[in-house]
């Protein structure tokens, strides 16, 4: 019997027939108004983490609006999905119990016009001031199409940042357009002298409406949207999306395709984390140390191109497997290259760690406390650098990871130096995983014929930044709702905590040590 069902039965005191398993990934529990509050507080007591929360409209005949709360419990393979139908356009807020809910509730309020009672923060999230107040694009009654932005914004509709008043406190507004070649976001610092007293991050400048665009498309067409969620998470998100559709269809993809997927996803992890690791020395004015890492990254990007035809693995995944096979000779060559990569990377990292001027800036800068990790659902290298061994590949194995089990290390410091070291370790380990997948590469074709079925499905993967959640609902062969939540969405608040009491010039370094995706957050 499913371990999560047994556990939930015990802690929630509910009969087994209330729980339904779905696609071997989630356990669904439908809850009603009377038990809502009690179940939420029992889950909190049992240390469940809120991994995602979203709304759907007309998911079945019986419901108008439905809220889904996806929970993760450590050491349980399945996720728990609470399904809560609401009759009016309102629901109780759970943000006081699960703090990450605050962002989701604001997101749902924008998208669907659902009000959350007793919510502390009712500011708009992805719809900035240029959108009219009563505009809710994810409602089925809104037909997607180009819109005209408001030119002027009434003063009472302007975004209200948290204000900190005291003698000597001043504000520094930064962005959305920054000085470097980076994505847009707004950072509002409240500073005393040089020390940061408070940072508030405002995102969603890049909101492109990916979730709404997917609706009404057939699953094959929508893959291009999954690829565009975040450029440097293309492989991770295409994998998650394809896997969702495949699970729904009961489709088993050929073993060779599983191996290639792992190789591409790990290559992506390597080049993405190399970018973070090169950026960190740049931000402490030590570009000499960054150059070898930049060179290695360019080599990996060129390898991506050789393996798939795209430096970012665009257009290489497909529902049922992979678009193209990779020749055995090329894989053999890659395996040899990774040996030299590994030793040159080791040298580059050792060189950087031997520079007192680098260490002095990395340690103990930008600390993320361990206590924050679970309540804020912080995942990936940031969690590992703060002593929490979370990794979807291990906690909820998918694809080949059930067989090639990654090893992850943790460090306790939670500072920039720890994140640097954790990322270095992940890169080295990814090279081993790739080599192992190449050694065990089976023959055969790389794509199975997809047969599409209707239903809802959850799919979770480990991207270079942590846990990415995809949830797809298909009806009559078309996408009814597509919900995506990348690791960055939950990890951004970690920066707000990490910069407290640090000096302003350390902000770029702390930011780079996490290197979160703006596009992946804004969708």
């Amino acid at each position, binding site marked *: 019997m499913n371990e999560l069902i047994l556990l939930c039965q015990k802690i929630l005191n509910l009969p087994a027939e209330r729980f339904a398993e779905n696609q071997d990934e989630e356990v669904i529990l439908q809850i009603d108004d009377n038990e809502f509050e009690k179940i939420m507080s029992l889950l909190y007591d049992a240390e469940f983490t809120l991994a995602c929360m979203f709304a759907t409209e007309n998911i079945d005949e019986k419901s108008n609006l439905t809220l889904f709360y996806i929970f993760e419990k450590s050491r349980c393979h399945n996720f728990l999905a609470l399904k809560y139908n609401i009759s009016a356009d309102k629901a109780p807020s759970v943000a006081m119990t699960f703090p990450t809910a605050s962002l989701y509730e604001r997101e749902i309020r924008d998208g669907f016009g659902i009000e959350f009672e007793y919510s502390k923060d009712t500011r708009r999230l992805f719809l*900035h001031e*240029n*959108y009219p107040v009563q505009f809710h*694009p994810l409602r089925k009654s*809104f037909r*997607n*199409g*180009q*819109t005209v*932005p408001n030119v002027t914004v009434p003063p009472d509709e302007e975004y209200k940042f948290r204000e900190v008043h005291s003698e000597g406190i001043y504000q520094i507004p930064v962005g*959305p*357009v920054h*000085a*470097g*070649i*980076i*994505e*847009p976001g707004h950072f509002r610092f409240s500073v005393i002298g040089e020390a940061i007293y408070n940072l508030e991050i405002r995102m*969603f*400048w*890049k*909101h*492109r*409406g990916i979730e*709404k*665009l997917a609706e009404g498309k057939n699953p094959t067409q929508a893959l*291009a*949207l999954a*690829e*565009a*969620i*975040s*450029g*440097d998470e*293309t492989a991770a998100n295409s994998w998650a999306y394809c896997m969702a559709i495949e699970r729904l269809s009961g489709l088993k993809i050929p073993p060779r395709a599983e191996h290639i997927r792992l190789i591409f996803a790990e290559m992506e992890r390597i080049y993405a984390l190399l*970018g973070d690791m*090169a950026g960190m020395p740049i931000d402490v004015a030590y570009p*000499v140390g960054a*150059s*070898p890492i*930049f*060179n290695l*990254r*360019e080599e990996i*990007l060129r390898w991506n*191109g050789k393996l798939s035809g*795209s*430096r*970012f693995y*665009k257009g290489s995944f497909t529902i049922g497997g992979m678009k193209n096979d990779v020749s055995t000779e090329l894989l053999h060559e890659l395996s040899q290259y990774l040996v030299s990569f590994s030793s040159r990377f080791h040298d580059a990292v050792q060189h950087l760690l031997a520079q007192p001027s680098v260490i002095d800036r990395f340690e103990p800068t930008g600390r993320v406390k361990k206590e924050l990790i679970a309540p804020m659902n912080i995942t990936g290298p940031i969690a590992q650098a703060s002593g929490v061994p979370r990794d979807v590949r291990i906690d909820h194995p998918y694809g080949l990871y059930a067989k090639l089990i990654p090893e992850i290390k943790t460090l306790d410091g939670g500072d920039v130096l720890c994140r640097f070291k954790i990322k270095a370790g992940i890169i080295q380990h990814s090279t081993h995983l790739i080599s192992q997948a190449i050694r065990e590469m089976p023959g055969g074709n790389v794509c199975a014929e997809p047969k599409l079925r209707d239903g809802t499905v959850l799919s979770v993967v480990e991207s270079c930044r942590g846990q990415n959640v995809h949830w797809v609902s298909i009806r009559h062969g078309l996408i009814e709702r597509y919900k995506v939540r990348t690791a960055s969405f939950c990890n951004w608040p970690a920066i707000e905590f990490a910069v407290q009491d640090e000096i302003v010039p350390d902000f770029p370094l702390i930011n780079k040590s996490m290197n979160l*995706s*703006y*596009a*992946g957050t804004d969708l």
Partner: protein
Amino acid sequence: MGGMFNNIVKPKITENFSFLDSELEQEGFAIREKIDKIFGGSLAIREVDAGSDNSPEIELVNLTTPYYDIERFGISFVASPRHADVLIVTGPVTRNMALALKKTYDATPEPKWVIALGDDACDGGIFKDSYAVLGGVDKIIPVDMKIRGNPPSPREILKGLFTFINQIEKQRS
């Protein structure tokens, strides 16, 4: 102690690069000649991301890394639109970024040029029917040149810049 002493007195050596891309250099130095002539030695580019998926930014940053090192060809990325000759804009322009893009354009001194980079920036790409997107960059500000690709590779960007500079040269003569 010995380590620190050696660190101070020994001659400094950077990594010896084993790559030489002569085709890239040829193109690069041809661009440099024209930049010398038209822009008085340096072409200053300000990059604005108006809604891309971040892959064009990765490739633009790559142009400044040792493999490409485009500063040697007289091209540099600057921190402010006030210092820029050219704006490179990526992404379909989102509603939330439209005003910031317009302000950045207005802050760039004349004469100025705009290059739309990436399929989304050229015409809105797969996002053009979204409520959240206004379309290609030319919906907001005048565009002088489009470099297509999802995303264009560093070499393709460099080729695009070369074409752009030739265009300017023709207009001047």
